[in-house]
């Protein structure tokens, strides 16, 4: 399936900022699951070309300007041909040692309740265990936006019993690591089942390692393994580590941050346009 994506992030400042620095992980990698095409990233209209693979193989770029702007508009857009591979994600050009993905972080550090959850889903059959975990996460943490923040931990989300995809993915990786299963937090885009443009933000899910199969993408929010409806941007040990945009500005504080994701199946018209350009 070919998906067309346009992801715009806008920062507005109350006064012009004197210096803006951005770390961008907005370049989907070429994987067995996905082939990006005509993908560009711009900041206030200027093309960012400095993308190169980081330690986990994800494209990472950097943008810097020393000018007074009141608004920073980051646009990542292009086409991605996706393939349904029954949840298996492979073809990484750089692989980190698996035990690295057993590292807990301040956002995933397990408490007693997460440890109990781990014991309840433990199963020598790793795939079965991870499916049970995914179902448990969906069950135990109801999806409700506005109940948690970006600083919420896995332990807090589980205690509260509600949260968003970030919280569900945090709980999933925290518990998987408790069980000795390498797991990582993934950010990307999801073509929502209801149709085009239903989801207006980036999505988060998890990948866990299964010997013999490799990395499997688990979307606990939707109770699914990843399909050709998913575009993978980057991964990390937690949401903070995997942030697609991390910024540092001097001279002002942001008064508004807005993210807009438009995703749809690239139509015949889009194909024709591309063909005409060739």
């Amino acid at each position, binding site marked *: 399936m070919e998906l067309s994506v346009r992801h715009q992030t806008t920062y507005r400042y109350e006064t012009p900022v004197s210096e803006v620095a951005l770390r961008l992980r907005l370049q989907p990698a070429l994987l067995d699951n996905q082939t990006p095409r005509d993908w560009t990233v711009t900041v206030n209209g200027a093309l960012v070309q400095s993308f*190169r693979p980081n*330690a986990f193989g994800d494209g990472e770029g950097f943008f*810097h300007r020393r000018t007074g702007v009141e608004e920073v508009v980051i646009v990542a857009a292009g086409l991605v041909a996706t393939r349904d591979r029954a949840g298996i994600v492979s073809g990484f050009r750089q692989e*980190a*040692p698996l*035990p690295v993905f*057993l*590292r807990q972080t301040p956002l995933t550090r397990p408490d007693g309740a997460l440890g109990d959850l781990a014991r309840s889903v433990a199963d020598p059959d790793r795939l079965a265990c991870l499916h049970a975990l995914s179902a448990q996460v969906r069950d135990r943490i109801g999806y409700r936006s506005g109940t948690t923040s970006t600083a919420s931990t896995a332990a807090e989300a589980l205690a509260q019993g509600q949260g968003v995809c970030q919280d569900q993915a945090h709980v999933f990786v925290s518990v998987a690591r408790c069980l000795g299963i390498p797991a990582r937090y993934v950010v990307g885009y999801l073509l929502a089942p209801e149709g085009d443009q239903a989801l207006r933000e980036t999505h988060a899910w998890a990948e866990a390692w299964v010997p013999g199969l490799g990395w499997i993408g688990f979307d606990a929010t939707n109770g699914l393994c990843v399909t050709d409806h998913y575009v993978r941007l980057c991964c990390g*040990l937690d949401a903070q580590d995997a942030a697609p945009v991390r910024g*540092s500005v001097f001279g002002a504080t942001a008064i508004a941050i807005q993210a807009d994701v438009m995703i749809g199946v690239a139509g015949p018209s889009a194909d024709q346009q591309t063909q005409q350009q060739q």
Partner: protein
Amino acid sequence: MSFFEMQAPDGAIRACYAEVKRWIDETGIEGLHRRMDEAEAIFRRIGITFAVYGEGGDPERLIPFDLLPRVFSRLEWQRLEQGIRQRAQALNAFLYDVYHRGEILRAGHIPQELVYLNPAFRPEMLGFDPPGRVYSHIVGIDIVRTGPEAFEVLEDNCRTPSGVSYMLENREIMTRMFPGLFAKGLVTPVDNYPALLLKTLKEVAPPACKGDPVVVLLTPGSLNSAYYEHSFLADLMGIELVEPMDLFVENDRVWKKTTAGPRLVDVIYRRIDDDYLDPLAFRPDSLLGVPGLFHAYRAGGVTLCSAPGAGIADDKAIYVYVPEMIRFYLGEEPILANIPTWQCGDAEGLAYVLAHLGELVAKEVHGSGGYGMLIGPHATKAEIAAYADRIRANPGGFIAQPTLELSTVPTLGETAVVQRHADFRPFCLVGEQMRLVPGGLTRVALTEGSLVVNSSQGGGVKDTWVLRS
């Protein structure tokens, strides 16, 4: 009985101390005290008042200087030097390995999780090749002596070991006050250290550098306890001392803001911890740091000395495996021994440590500077019991070592020359080649019988001589 480095038990003066002894006798205790007051006045005037790496304490407090030099013979130094170089080489080989294929872990010599789950390990560094494959460009190795032939390594410092300015200043003061002592040329000079350091830093210039590399020293600022050393070294190397706000990153290169416009920087000798280097790569709440610095580093636009993540090599849990590293990477036997160490993280070690805590020195794995450690033989029963509880609560966080009979060096007492325990920190430079000036920092415990040489706990410093022949 501790080994006294100046004098054999039968009263004979050891040959390397002959000149020092002659000078002590000639000057007399009263004379030495007068000169000591002068030396202290000079130190105060220059303003050397910083603490040694990670020791905390009041940065404005003057670290006591003891006038009597500590002396190594040529032969002693040769063996020390070989051992130090060997260790610095193995530590860098280990760093390259764990940030690449991890062969030493695959071979089962070091438990994987001890490295990959260690907070000092930086996953961001995986797969990156720093120039010359060097991670730790200045390796400070803390060495103790327990006998005429017995030198042992207490710990390694692979990040940004400090204290080298004491080595330089102590020698400078001694030369200025006692030119006669050095006139015969018996003592090997150390004053070429800044030139060798600069040479080393230029050798690891990044791929993007064209021409003569521009090197700067990056300091957190004047509030840092080692700021004096930062400005002192920058001055001696003739390079600029910069703070994070002086730098920015653009087009994968690092630039220094100047009144005449941006100026390229190739190599950064950073005296800032990993966490505070770059808020976009490491701690996001850090107000220090240069946004994008790590990106420029991975892009080959700048070299950071030391490399982020170099601290995994000097972690106390990793320390016990350094002899194994030397065998694995160099195919050699360690020249300098480790101190036997029990890890409370394994059951056997824990049982031994809990049963013998009264005889051992116990330390926190991630602690430094003599804080949070227990010296069993000097502790009360209650202190030992309380410490045992702490170990039981988090066994993996502790190691223990036997109480060592540290050697003693001559030190100026009230009315006589007295013996005080000392350690030694030489500084090995690693670039395209390894360099070591003959000397280092000798720290001395000024309290009688004390084994703690840290300046925050009543330690002082002294000049260290390596004899020419």
